[in-house]
């Protein structure tokens, strides 16, 4: 026992360092287990990682600011990245919080509510916002004989008006394997969309 006490006295600094290291490793481990769930739920909600498959094509919804006031108008851009794959068309099905947001019509001359289409493809096949459903349906295609799109660019821009305070999610509907939601489609009739980045909008009074 005396020998042990002597050993402690002689190596107190070394043993303290070892103990500190053990505590640090354990703390890091515990943090890795709990922190993402506890402190980043919104991030997980907004980013739809879908599967562990490598990203083949993605749709990213981006806004200019983190929060807006009720009455403000703002734009959410929808960026398509095909990761170099040639695509003949992209379908975009957007769900938004219809109680907090309203789509501002981008083509007043046309009947109904439309969003602003990009120029990645030559033809807009559909463009319709349905207020009561809180849905936007947009599709752009390369018509027969026209160039297919590959690369990264703005597929469409949605202009919203904030109508009620709170957090409003704007998301592109997508589920791997489903063909009835958002799709990025190749000439080989494959939906290569594997990742969607949605947008959470904070609206204050």
């Amino acid at each position: 026992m005396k020998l042990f006490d002597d050993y402690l006295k002689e190596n107190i600094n070394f043993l303290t360092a070892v103990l500190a290291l053990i505590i640090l490793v354990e703390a890091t481990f515990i943090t890795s287990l709990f922190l993402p769930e506890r402190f980043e739920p919104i991030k997980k909600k907004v980013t739809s990682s879908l599967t562990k498959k490598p990203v083949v094509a993605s749709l990213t919804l981006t806004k200019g600011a983190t929060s807006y006031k009720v009455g403000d108008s703002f734009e959410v851009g929808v960026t398509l990245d095909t990761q170099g794959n040639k695509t003949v068309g992209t379908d975009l099905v957007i769900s938004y919080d219809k109680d907090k947001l309203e789509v501002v019509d981008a083509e007043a001359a046309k009947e109904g509510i439309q969003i602003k289409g990009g120029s990645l493809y030559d033809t807009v096949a559909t463009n319709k916002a349905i207020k009561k459903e809180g849905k936007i349906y947009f599709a752009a295609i390369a018509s027969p004989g026209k160039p297919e799109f590959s690369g990264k660019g703005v597929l469409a821009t949605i202009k919203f008006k904030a109508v009620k305070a709170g957090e409003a999610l704007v998301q592109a509907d997508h589920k791997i394997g489903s063909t009835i939601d958002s799709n990025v489609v190749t000439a080989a009739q494959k939906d290569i969309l594997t990742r969607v980045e949605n947008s959470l909008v904070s609206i204050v009074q």
Partner: protein
Amino acid sequence: MKKLLSRLLILALSLEIFSLLNLPSVYAVSANLYLSPANLSVNLNSEFTIAVRADVNGGQTNAVQANLSYPTALLQFVSIDTITSAFDIQAENTGGSGSVKIARGILTPKTGDQLVANVTFKGISTGAANVSFASGSNVVDGGSAIPLTTTPGTYTVTSTQEGNWVNKIVINLSLPDVLQGNLISKVSIIGESPEYSVDLKPGTTSVTLTIPDGVFAVSSLTKKLKLATEKSLTRVVDFIPNAKELTINVGSIKLGDINSDNAINSIDYSILISSYMPKNDTKADLNLDTVVNSIDYSMMLANFSGVGD
């Protein structure tokens, strides 16, 4: 005198015209061209011989022209045999493509019922084959046609032997991967009565038709299988039904014919574009997932400008 001569001339001309107009009535005799036997049941893929005969009832003949017509779908011309013909001079002797032409003569006229020639056919498909005398047939005596009647024959090609019926047809095909519902396809063999309706489920690579005896005979004749699938270009594939069980490769089913005109073109494109989500007109829903979108468009685009068989 002149008046008498002119009256005689008019009378002579009148008699001549009368005789020409009433040529048949001049003859007391008549002739019958007929086939013997008139009815026969023959086996599929077997040859059979019929006699072409001329019967001059109470008169005589020194030349016969017998033109026969036959259905090429059921019969195949094989040969003409004149060795035992009563008429030893040959003027015409041809057969094929639905027609047989025999013209024969003799210096010494023949009386009664005489053999003109024997004609051999082969039954190539099941059914009743009518062989008849076509226009141009004549029985002649000294340069004048004898009033003629003709009697055709009916030859029934059957396949009654065990094993001579096609009982199973396996159709190999491929469907687009993105198909999510069943496509209805009408399968028929052109020229045969039955039409089969089959469901092409996603992932289907072949369909099997089970056919009872007595419907579709084994034969060496080329047939055409027609596969008419909804929203798709029609496929027609040649095959020879030479066995009880057949396998026919149809290939890929080409979807995109929305208006069912057997072509995929700008009309289908315009229908599809006007049907896009959220409208979802099911006519343009090519992959049968209830939504019309770019997946359907890509399916149509893959076959754009295509035309069916």
